[in-house]
């Protein structure tokens, strides 16, 4: 029998017939090259045992939490019908019509929000006929969200070293932006901390915009999040619950 890698690989994977396997056993007794190849293969496989380790503790919780924060799952029937493809196309057309990608809009939104308490600057010193910039941002977001609630992967941004993911939802006609991060969000100076809540929750209002945040304690793994929407502040916890965020 001559040396043949295909036969050697079949032998190692137990895929030779009984007769061929016996013949290969005989071959191994006289062929140093094949014998060394078999030994090296087994040593390599054995070394890999070291890497069969479980996922780090906490990764399952992190995944479960992120799935919860991903919000409302896709409408299965709608997806099967392929309407999501049409929807994406529709969104692209709207974006092209606005001449500004949604990513930039969302980035502008988060820059404003992360300033914590600085929302006012976009609402002041504007002519009365000029709608507040933040309202225009929200209005521009409106066409970008699904008519029916839909799961989104989210847009990711990095602001001053804080990685933030932003998703947008339509809840009973209102646009709700949800920002999530592995680090707590800075609270606006005007925020009210909700007593007795764990993790720490806060609410704030700027003009007609309301914010509601839930911050994980520093040093503890988990996802902090906050919502912003043009609706009464007291309604936001209910919206968060409806989106299965809390």
């Amino acid at each position: 029998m001559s040396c043949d890698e295909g036969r050697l690989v079949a032998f190692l994977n137990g895929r030779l017939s009984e007769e061929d396997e016996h013949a290969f056993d005989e071959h191994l007794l006289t062929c140093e090259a094949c014998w060394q190849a078999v030994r090296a293969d087994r040593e390599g496989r054995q070394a890999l045992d070291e890497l069969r380790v479980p996922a780090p503790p906490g990764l399952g919780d992190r995944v479960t939490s992120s799935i919860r924060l991903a919000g409302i799952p896709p409408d299965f029937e709608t997806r099967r019908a392929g309407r999501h493809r049409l929807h994406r196309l529709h969104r692209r057309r709207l974006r092209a019509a606005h001449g500004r990608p949604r990513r930039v809009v969302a980035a502008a939104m988060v820059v404003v929000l992360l300033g914590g308490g600085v929302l006012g600057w976009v609402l002041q010193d504007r002519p009365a006929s000029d709608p507040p910039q933040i309202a225009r941002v929200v209005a521009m977001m409106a066409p970008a969200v699904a008519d029916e609630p839909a799961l989104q992967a989210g847009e990711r941004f990095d602001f001053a070293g804080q990685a933030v993911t932003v998703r947008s939802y339509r809840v009973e006609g209102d646009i709700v932006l949800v920002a999530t991060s592995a680090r707590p969000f800075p609270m606006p100076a005007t925020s009210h901390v909700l007593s007795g809540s764990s993790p720490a929750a806060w609410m704030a209002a700027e003009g007609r915009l309301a914010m509601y945040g839930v911050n994980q304690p520093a040093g503890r793994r988990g996802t902090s999040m906050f919502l912003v929407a043009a609706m009464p502040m007291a309604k936001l916890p209910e919206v968060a619950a409806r989106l299965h965020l809390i």
Partner: protein
Amino acid sequence: MDETRQAFLEATLPHIDVLYRVARHAGHDHHRAEDFVQETYLRAYANFADHRGPSTRAWLVTICLNLVRSDGRRRARRVAEVPLSSDDSYPVGGRDVADEALAGVDRERVARALDRLPEHHRLAVVLMDLAGLSAAEVAAQLGRPRNTVLSWAHRGHRELAALLATEDADREL
């Protein structure tokens, strides 16, 4: 909604260990393995309604592998990034700390050697030996014939053994 999410988690969470190994060893960006796993679950959740395959594990590994490889291609086009934290060590399990530390040293050696294998050989080894996929599933993942995949895995095993043996010899000098 809750039922869907629960069904998704019940079907997919048992494969989190496999996904972590793939995320950690299929590419070279070890410190992002947990991020890749989380993103894999988010994408899988978004497409759960479309999942009809017989193997949930193979489906999840496909998503994870695509993420790792596309990230690798993006990084190859960019200037190299240096992580702020160099803590690439494996998580410590419930074993005795000293035993775990020694085992960690061996794991790091094997992980470093695996990282040096040619990409096709490394992928075949990771998917077959660490993810537990069949040769046919790996062949479908990599778009190559089954025998080619088996041959790559075999060469990967041999190269791994040779690299570790060389390292041992160097340490004895």
